[in-house]
């Protein structure tokens, strides 16, 4: 890890006092999915150890100080799909403090913004009544359709050729909810499923701010522009998320995002999970088709009957496994998983909280999006196809220190911006590209929050390439692998490892790279652990 990555989160059990007992399960990677899987396994009586390479757990939610007194809460800056079962399992909201649902401000250059409230724009300020009706109709349609897909997201993907009773009931349930809505809905679902978000937005909406927003949300973290075929899937995915029981809603936990990683870790520790940080797993030990243990950067070997890899699938198989233990066809398909991130993250240390023109002071706690129109998002994406960054990027902004004042010295503030598109493999390299891209992002922000650049104390721009090294995240990809039609469900990450089990018996996958995909949901970890428990009762 680099020096810019000291642990923000505290607890990590001392490796010194560690003896080598036997474990039932070894979890590689202390991201939120690894911790979720570990917790469920431990709650079911398994002896579990989590091995995390960084000095603290949390994965992409791992915070760091980027300037004396100024901290980033990590890469993820908002919660919009934390699964309720995961929250219950980890007793994440047992303290009874409910976080408030946050608005999304679709920023407009003229300062007249559209503000979506409730669960993904149940009400919207700043738009015409006619547009509100149109948005509500689109929202209803998409939420209904996402609801059908959601049935498949909360369970292990079916195995082709081995469809079981519960799979049938999911299919039947999905079919039933379509039938009860009439033939029209079924047709519409099939018509829209693989459409691009731009065409759907154009079909319903006329307000560019709203169109820009849905175009942005559909493509965030995915290598697609809004006019790319199938780009609607990203928006469906967003709408399969719920927060506090509201579809499409988002929040920042009480005390800020920085409280979330420790909450996952505490839940694991409370369930009896042993957690070791600062140890890299360097090898998965396997022989003739069975994985039996791991080798650590310290040279130690730990053995267990179940190895749960909650890190990127390509890292799991291509870096940790001896490819000789895997089939050529399998290695070939894992190598072909597309996983090059194109979201950059900018953390700003500010002298004072910024003011975005036309945004109420309360709404500054929400999510601010700069995506003027569909064309803006598409134009921002185009250069990424050719290995270049956007010269007019689209942005998602939060002000983390508003929820967690500890992140900045008193009076100061932090700003977190996710900037697209910033391809992992920048033509010409990021060394020269970074200052240029950062300057462009700052200019963009300045346009919406005049005076902001003058208050910048320090900045830290992380490209996908930086995330790869600093977060052990191959490709710096949001989802640990593109979330596109060909890498979903029974093909996530690849068919032969789609159901958490892998061709190596005893080795399981549990990261965002597995079904259903990325975001702070805990679902891959939860479903993986459930599968392990069902296979090894």
């Amino acid at each position: 890890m680099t020096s810019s990555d000291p642990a923000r989160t505290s607890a990590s059990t001392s490796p010194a006092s560690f003896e080598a007992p036997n474990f039932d399960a070894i979890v590689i990677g202390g991201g939120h999915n690894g911790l979720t899987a570990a917790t469920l396994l431990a709650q079911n009586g398994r002896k579990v150890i989590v091995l995390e390479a960084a000095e603290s757990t949390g994965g992409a939610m791992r915070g760091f100080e980027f300037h004396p007194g100024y901290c980033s809460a990590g890469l993820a800056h908002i919660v919009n799909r934390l699964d309720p079962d995961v929250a219950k399992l980890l007793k994440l909201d047992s303290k009874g403090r409910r976080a408030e649902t946050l608005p999304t401000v679709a920023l407009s250059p003229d300062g007249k913004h559209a503000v979506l409230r409730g669960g993904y724009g149940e009400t919207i300020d700043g738009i015409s009544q006619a547009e509100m009706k149109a948005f509500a109709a689109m929202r209803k349609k998409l939420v209904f359709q996402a609801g059908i897909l959601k049935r498949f997201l909360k369970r292990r993907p079916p195995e082709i050729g081995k469809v079981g009773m519960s799979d049938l009931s999911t299919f039947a349930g999905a079919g039933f909810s379509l039938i009860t809505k009439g033939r029209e809905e079924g047709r519409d679902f099939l018509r829209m499923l693989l459409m691009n978000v731009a065409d759907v937005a154009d079909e319903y909406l006329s307000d560019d701010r709203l169109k820009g927003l849905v175009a942005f949300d559909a493509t965030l973290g995915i290598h697609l522009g809004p006019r790319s075929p199938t780009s609607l899937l990203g928006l469906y995915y967003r709408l399969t998320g719920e927060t506090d029981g509201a579809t499409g809603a988002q929040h920042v936990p009480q005390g800020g995002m920085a409280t979330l990683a420790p909450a996952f870790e505490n839940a694991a520790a409370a369930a009896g999970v042993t957690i070791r940080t600062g140890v890299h797993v360097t090898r998965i030990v396997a022989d003739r088709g069975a994985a039996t243990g791991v080798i650590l950067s310290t040279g130690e070997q730990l053995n267990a009957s179940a190895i749960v890899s909650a890190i990127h699938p390509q890292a799991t198989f291509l870096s940790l496994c001896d490819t000789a233990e895997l089939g050529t066809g399998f290695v070939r398909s894992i190598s072909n998983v597309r996983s090059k991130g194109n979201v950059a993250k900018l953390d700003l240390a500010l002298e004072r909280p910024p003011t975005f023109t036309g945004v109420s002071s309360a709404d500054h706690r929400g999510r601010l999006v700069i995506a003027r129109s569909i064309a803006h998002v598409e134009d921002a994406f185009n250069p990424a196809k050719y290995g270049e960054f956007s010269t007019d990027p689209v942005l998602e902004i939060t002000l983390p220190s508003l929820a967690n004042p500890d992140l900045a010295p008193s009076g100061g503030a932090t700003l977190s911006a996710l900037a697209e598109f910033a391809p992992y493999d920048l033509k010409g390299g990021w060394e020269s590209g970074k200052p240029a891209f950062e300057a462009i992002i700052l200019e963009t922000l300045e346009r919406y929050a005049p005076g902001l650049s003058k208050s910048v104390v320090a900045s830290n721009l992380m490209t996908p390439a930086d995330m790869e090294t600093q977060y052990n995240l191959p490709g710096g990809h949001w989802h640990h692998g593109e979330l596109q039609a060909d890498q979903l469900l029974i093909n996530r990450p690849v068919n032969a490892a789609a159901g958490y089990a892998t061709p190596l018996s005893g080795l399981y996958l549990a990261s965002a790279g597995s079904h259903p995909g990325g975001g702070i949901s805990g679902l891959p970890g939860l479903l993986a652990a459930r599968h392990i428990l069902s296979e090894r009762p």
Partner: protein
Amino acid sequence: MMLEMNTRRALQGHIATPRFETPFHPRIAAISETSDWYTWAGYKAPHSVFDEELEYFAIRSTAALFDISPMVKYRIAGPDAERYLNRLTVRNVAKLSTGRVHYTAWCDDHGHVLDDGTLFRLSADTFRLCCQERHLPWLLDSAIGFDVGIEEETMQIAGLALQGPTSFAVLSNAGFDCIERLKPFQLADFPHEDGSVTISRTGFTGDLGYELFVPAEAALSLWDRLWTAGQLHGIRAIGYAALNRARIEAGFIVANADFMTAETALRADRARMPDEIGLEWLVDTEKPNFNGRKAILEARRNQTLKHVLVGLEIEGNIPADGAIIYHRKKHEAGLVSAAIWSPLAKRNIAIASLTRPYGTRLTEDLWVEIYALRELQYQKMMKRARIVPRPFIKLDRRAAAPPGLF
């Protein structure tokens, strides 16, 4: 943009040469009496040279020279070459010592055979893999994670099979000193011109015989050297038809003739596991992991193997090529993929694929349905077939060490 006519012609030279010619082509073309060519892996190769029948007898009674240059050849070299090949192929490469050759096969992840072929260990970490089909993408993808280089050398290396009782005498006479030391499946380099030729005591005939590999540039001089030395030993150039008879007698199978390779089969149920084409003896389940291992073991455990390849002896003397096999003359049980009247065994023999349990549990009461076309009328016959071990012939001279001078 329209190209000038001449430029276009020049770019389309391949139209005028639809098939490659092998490095030996000038010699074979010069002596060919039948002008009977077929296409072998994109090369023009002789089906016969002067007389199919007599060519077969050259294999069995004197010496036959067969051009194997079209055989696909890969050079696999590097510190991980052995480990790489052990993962790629089903047989244990750690047991293959330098200077030896073994017959092997390789499978995809599902345990379906991609091809069979011969693996030559030229040095501790240099190998040559010879086979029927092209596999470069598969071989390269198999190299992910290994320190090994893979190069196709089909074009660069010319190959000749010299087979038959007098083949050793021909080589001796041609001045390949110490050739008598080569035991079956052994190889060595011998000086030729200013370079060398790799000679192995291998072949596809079940007879005494050798295979010779040289850089393409040295092909013609090697041919001439053998041809001259072989004059008194009855050397003949032969085509595939004759070789095919010999290989059937020897019980060898041919990819995409006796089984479909996994990558060429269009229909999902045509792919075959080693155990379904008589290659179970190659599979070493004790060695480290290899492609298809899990699937093969699972199929064995769950008894889901669907086919079995057998040798048949069929009553009468009419070759049953392509015939359907019946159990109790009623239930379809399989198909004959190769058949001849064997002059050496004096039996009507065949290689056949049966659908289990025929050939495994049900081995009696098998019949083949032969249609013999006689002056524009089919005569349909049901002939009794008996499962017999392969090879159909066994020649002591094949393995004799030192080999005999005939």
